[in-house]
């Protein structure tokens, strides 16, 4: 199935990546070729095969509920593009978020 430039733009939006028109034009056919090549997986992935999400069958790895030292705020904020009042300063938010 062909991936249109419009669809690439939609996906880039979902992935929060600004693409130039040239990038979009280049990506669409490239992704198409890759998707074509990988599509064979659905041929062998029959209903009787269970999916594997983790390489090994480990279960129940838990951490004890103990408090460990946190980082000093100054260290947490040291690499922030902008900080103010011990907080990370971010540009105005348009969306209200998903939660």
């Amino acid at each position, binding site marked *: 199935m062909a*991936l249109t430039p419009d*669809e*690439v733009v939609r*996906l*880039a*939006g*979902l*992935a*929060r*990546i*600004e*693409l*130039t028109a040239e*990038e979009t034009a280049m*990506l669409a056919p*490239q*992704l198409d*070729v*890759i*998707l074509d*090549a*990988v*599509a*064979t*997986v*659905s041929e*062998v*992935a*029959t209903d009787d*095969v*269970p*999916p*594997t*999400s*983790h*390489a*090994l069958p*480990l279960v129940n*790895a*838990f*951490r004890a509920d103990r408090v460990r030292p946190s*980082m000093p705020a100054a*260290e*947490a904020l*040291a*690499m*922030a*593009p*902008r900080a103010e009042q011990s907080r*990370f300063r*971010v*540009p*105005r*938010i*348009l*969306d209200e978020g998903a939660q």
Partner: protein
Amino acid sequence: MSEPQSPRTSMTDAVTTGGAEILTSSATDLVAAMEAGQVSSVEITQACLDRIEAVDRQVHAFLTVDAERALRQAREVDSRRAAGQRLGPLAGVPLAVKDLFCYQGMVTTAASRMLAGWVSPYTSTVVQRCVDAGMVILGKTNLDEFAMGSSTETSAFGPTHNPWDLERIPGGSGGGSAAALAAFQAPLALGTDTGGSIRLPAALTGTVGVKPTYGGTSRYGVIAMASSLDQPGPCARTVADAALLHQVIAGYDPMDQTSIPRDVPPVVEACRQIDLAGMRLGVVTGLSGQGYAPGVTQRFEEAVAALRGAGAEVIEVSCPHFEHALGAYYLIQPAEVSSNLARYDAMRYGLRLDDDGEHSAEQVMAASRGAGFGAEAKRRIILGTYALSSGYYDAYYGSAQKVRTLISRDFEAAWATCDALISPTTPTTAFRIGERTDDPLAMYQADLCTIPANLAGIATGSFPAGLAPEDGLPVGLQVMAPVLCDDRVYRVGAALEAQLEAAWGGPLLASIPPLGAAAKEDVR
């Protein structure tokens, strides 16, 4: 065999500065020499730093070198040794670290513009274990951006050059670590392997690289590419050195809940057992033939003969689903990438563009990510976003996870008939820089042989198998062993090394063309 005529001579030529013996020595020998008081960690470290200074303009293996910190660590180990303290088996040995491992106080970039200049406030478990073992951290090595690539060409800071032929790629993603070893800039290095990022560069640079069993080494503090596949591992010039580093870094870490709460397999001991009597090896029939360079096939077959010579029984094993491994990998890996790389959103750290009061957070995120990620990263993020998006999940991601099951079953069936599987590490030798950059699919083909092991989480490694006659470039042999049987990988690797070095009259790297003054001007 058209192997090196007089390896010792050419190796000496390769080193134009002082300390030639130091630079070409194995870590094992360096530790023995330090223990005997013949050389200090400071001298070894200084020799490596000098060598980096001398040749890295050509090789570009390193992104960051911290000479001062390295020498401070070296001095400390020397004084502890002088005071008669008991030290670990690699104390005082310099280490090059792939720039995917966080190391407190050192710039950590993942070779991305996104993280240029980011100083990590914490240290990954694996690097911490190396530091605790008294190893000396030289600096950070180059890689494909966020480890996404098979050639180290997608690095935002320029490609690494293969020390065997500076116009060629060193493999990827961990090309910097492998090149640093082949260029004698460091005796040991750390890598990570998601689809072959340790083994592929090892094969293409004539060095040793092992991907431990998934969960055998901690991923904590290692910048994630594809979480269910990533695994840190050792890179070295000899099998025994790799095992020593493996022993230092491996083992359960409560900070990584996918790490296995079990003892580390006896990898160091396995290297001493150089005969393979009683061991049955399976040659994967599908990983050969069309698409494999003649020199690769030839050296692989010779290596199989050498393994027979070491006492192994060799049979053929068919793994029918391996042909779908590449497809499954290039769905699962981009899917996880698309999620793992979401955090680089310009809010808390990293590149931020267009923060002018006009643009919203959403716009700043998109602009920063658009500018901060390179073409391959964007390609994979968008591919992964697609594979996970509603309506396509079952056909792509879901199916890929089923193929993962089928591949594991192929391995399980193989273990019923043999102790380990072998194949070429990669279908071809190192290609030229730029040769495949416009053809992602051709690039992905380099991972054909290495990917099944990642999907199944098993232990695997690549070992030098000689130089392809047609181009004189290194060929690697891949060993794959069951989960937590990492020792078998080393046992086979050590036996192969012993057999082949006896035939060659020395290590493969002894025949690497010299780097240095003569070549300095015409490259880079």
